[in-house]
């Protein structure tokens, strides 16, 4: 066990975590240069394109140290986005050490800090690494100061590295051996293994990744997942190299995988504890949570006939992404579809993209919202959950409505404090704390309604801070708010998919903006289109799109017919992607983009 080193990597998006991890794989010859695709650990197309890690993975490396001993490293890769912070916390719990990778050209970001605090809470040994030091814009001294201030280390403990050139990789390897403690655990104790991730394989079912805290796991053991209470046989176990390597036993302190014939990801909960039925552990590993979706949006097929196809695709997606939830929903405007729950906006976008790319589904995503609680005035009625604006009772019947609040940490340069304050106050936020981390980095804490940051917050924050502000949040509680339902009508027909719950004081301005935005998003048609926003029966805003004036080519002779036919076919294909509401054709993207109100 003393030869094991289990560690994870904490880094902000784009700080070079994946590239540096790739260098470690190369250095230990875990992966040959020939097989090396950039970012070997990220194997979904979307991950590689977006340069982010969505699902965490693990890999075992072997390192011949100068002390003559061959060490086994388990590198546990973690997602770097705010939507996936629970998964990060479970990966961290499986480690004894963490590489803290900071981009020397950018400095510490909020997401890094919150994950770093998680690692410190779990008593992980932190090895700070300044990456991208080969870049001209690297601010080595300044960022070194930031790191020293943050974790209270000695500047000499910080390793300078470059994922691009491979500089510093050797030092990182040595530091892992010398500074990260070996896992402590009792091989003779009852089995206690922490599930920190799972993947879906269409041939083998769901594969869970675990770290053994105490005891050992043998092939063929009868096992129980403590939190779900379900029992299975350990059909296959093994360790994780670039591919899975079957083993008869996975020992205490090691990281491995287990295949039990589970067909649906829902059955495996990240954070759960595996034990044996024969000799069960007395308690589960702490920190298990059932992750709940934070954001809901409707997903509808563009063509109503594709409803069943969409259901199939969502079911398949759920097989390998247990955090996706969905239930059937019907909309007057959009017909039959699904109300889907996501961990956050990035998660929503990823699902939407995967539906399109992997399942070829042409979908409309509606404006996302958070979950509310409401209580009706009717006698004996109880507080109930509101997942869509349509669920909100008539205002005359409404006793109260509650919305979720979060605590947000924003880290930025001091010169952007003013505009960040303005943005957060505009989003009904309240500042509770302001701390200088270093003279050039300030951390601000706000209490904000989640609904206000679900949409259009992150992009605006990035733009007002020229990309410097970073942001992270944790859910706080539910609070009563004076919310009203804003409706949109197109040529007099209400479009339920465009309804939203907004604060009363902001409702009129919201209605005006949304009408204006729709005017930009809707193409001109053969007839005039009236766009109205209403609150209850009162119309608060109106825009008109005049009818299309000219849509005809001047000439259509012998040589023009082919080109013209192809042009009109393209036009028709474009129209087919739109949704007919009353007699108005609404482009697919309008339903989501309508709320991007600069």
């Amino acid at each position, binding site marked *: 066990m003393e030869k094991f080193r289990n560690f994870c990597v904490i880094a902000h998006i784009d700080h070079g975590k994946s590239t540096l991890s790739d260098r470690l794989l190369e250095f230990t010859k875990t992966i040959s240069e020939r097989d090396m695709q950039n970012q070997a650990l990220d194997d979904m197309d979307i991950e590689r394109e977006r340069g982010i890690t969505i699902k965490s993975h693990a890999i075992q490396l072997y390192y011949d140290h100068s002390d003559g001993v061959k060490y086994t490293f388990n590198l546990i890769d973690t997602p770097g986005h705010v939507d996936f912070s629970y998964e990060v916390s479970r990966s961290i719990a499986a480690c004894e050490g963490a590489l803290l990778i900071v981009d020397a050209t950018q400095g510490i970001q909020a997401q890094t800090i919150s994950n770093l605090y998680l690692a410190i809470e779990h008593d992980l040994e932190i090895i700070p690494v300044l990456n991208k030091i080969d870049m001209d814009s690297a601010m080595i001294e300044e960022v070194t100061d930031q790191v020293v201030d943050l974790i209270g280390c000695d500047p000499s403990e910080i390793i300078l590295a470059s994922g691009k050139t491979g500089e510093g990789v050797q030092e990182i390897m040595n530091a892992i051996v010398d500074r990260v403690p070996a896992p402590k655990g009792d091989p003779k104790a009852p089995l206690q293994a922490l599930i920190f991730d799972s993947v879906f394989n269409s041939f083998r079912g769901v594969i869970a990744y675990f770290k053994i805290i105490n005891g050992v796991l043998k092939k063929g053991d009868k096992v129980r997942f403590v939190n779900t209470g379900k029992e299975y046989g350990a059909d296959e176990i093994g360790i994780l190299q670039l591919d899975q390597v079957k083993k008869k036993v996975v020992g205490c302190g090691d990281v491995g995988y287990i295949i039990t014939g589970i067909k649906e990801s829902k059955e495996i909960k990240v954070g759960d504890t595996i034990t044996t039925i024969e000799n069960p552990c007395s308690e589960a590993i702490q920190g298990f949570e059932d992750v709940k979706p934070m954001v809901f949006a409707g997903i509808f097929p563009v063509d109503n006939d594709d409803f069943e196809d969409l259901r199939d695709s969502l079911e398949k997606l759920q097989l390998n992404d247990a955090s996706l939830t969905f239930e059937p929903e019907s909309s007057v405007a959009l017909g039959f579809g699904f109300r889907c729950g996501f961990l956050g906006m990035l998660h929503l976008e990823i699902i939407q993209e995967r539906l399109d790319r992997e399942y070829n589904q042409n979908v409309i995503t509606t404006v996302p919202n958070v979950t509310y609680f409401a209580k009706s005035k009717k006698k004996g009625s109880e507080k109930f959950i509101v997942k869509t604006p349509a669920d909100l009772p008539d205002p005359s019947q409404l006793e109260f409505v509650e919305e979720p609040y979060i605590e947000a940490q924003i880290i930025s340069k001091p010169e952007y404090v003013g505009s960040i304050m303005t943005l957060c106050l505009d989003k009904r936020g309240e500042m509770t704390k302001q701390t200088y981390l270093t003279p050039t980095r300030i951390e601000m804490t706000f209490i904000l309604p989640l609904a206000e940051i679900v949409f259009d917050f992150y992009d605006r924050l990035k733009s007002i801070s020229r990309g410097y502000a970073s942001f992270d949040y944790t859910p706080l509680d539910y609070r009563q708010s004076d919310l009203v339902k804003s409706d949109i009508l197109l040529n007099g027909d209400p479009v339920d998919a465009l309804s939203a719950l907004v604060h009363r004081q902001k409702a009129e301005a919201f209605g005006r903006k949304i009408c204006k935005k729709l005017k930009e998003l809707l193409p001109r048609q*053969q007839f005039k289109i009236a766009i109205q926003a209403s609150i209850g029966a009162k119309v608060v805003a109106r825009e008109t799109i005049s009818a*299309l004036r*000219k849509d*005809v080519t001047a000439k259509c002779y*012998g040589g023009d017919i082919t080109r013209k036919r192809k*042009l*009109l076919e393209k036009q*028709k294909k474009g129209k087919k992607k739109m949704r007919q509401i009353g007699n108005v054709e609404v482009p697919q993207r309008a339903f989501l983009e309508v709320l991007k109100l600069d």
Partner: protein
Amino acid sequence: MAGIYIHIPFCKQACHYCNFHFSTSLNHKTALVEALQKEIKLQKNFLLGATIESIYFGGGTPSMLTEMELMDIFSTLHQSFEIGKTAEITFEANPDDLTSAYLQTLVKSPVNRLSIGVQSFFEEDLKWMNRAHDANQAIDCIHEARKAGFENFSVDLIYGSPSTSNGMWEKNLEKIRALKIPHLSSYALTVEEGTALGSWVKKGKMPDVDPAKSLKHFEMLQQFVQKNHYRHYEISNMALEGFEAVHNSNYWKRIPYLGIGPAAHSFDGKNRQWNINNNAKYIQALNEGRLEMEKEALSESDLFNEYIMTGLRCDWGISKAYIAKHFPQFNNTFEKELAAQVQLGALVEKTSSFVLADAAKFIADGVASEFFVVND
């Protein structure tokens, strides 16, 4: 029944808006005229022996052909095809080329109809468009054509140009009336890629065409044709009774035609093909006894879409009976869309067909595409 189009790809100078295939260098002219004749011979069976009811010389500028060149082309045509006695033989000409001498050449030839590229009677417009003629030539050529004996001719006019005020447009139309022009082809100025105008608009050096102005001019045109008893038989074409263009009408009725010359298109009823739009390569290929061209076979839905697209542009419209007979597989969606468009007021019913309402003519493409059958 069939037609022949002959493309003469040369111009004296480039009009700023034109995206047809042409060259302002005359180096290859002799070789090209020879190549045209080779193609005529090579393609003599394309129309399966049908009698030729119309021949159209377009361009470019056909009036850049010499008398000898024109005679040679006609001679080759007669050797290869049976040309109907009453065939319409149209010749596009620019006003500056229509001297009395050249008109004499044309009168002696089989040409029996002229299409004159007047575009405007105003100097400002002609300069703006970079036309080769001036305002005086625009009027003179019409008198000269008549003097030479041409009664059947068409005049082209462009509207909606930034250089054309509403008042100027009205005066241009008034000239058409005063000169008793038997056939008018009138086009909204269109900004095309690959033209001087297109590049200026793209770079912001010149404003894009104002669709509101184009529409206004089109409405003025509609009032003009009604008042003066022209038949507005296609979006951009109007004629006094008996002067409708046979050749162009046949395009819209999807009657087969053979296109001769670089960039010329041909249609045999089921396939469309088009020659390479490069004079040198065109000549080279024919010198080697072959044609350089691309071809597309039309699917059932292509044929249906073309029927709708061309029919809606014309005053004979689209008919339920035709669809039921030729495209029964698309009948349901067709009837559904037809009802929707009638409801919107875009289409009106005539005796045996549906035609675009006057107010919908300027959005003809949008209405046509609503009917289109496309595969995902």
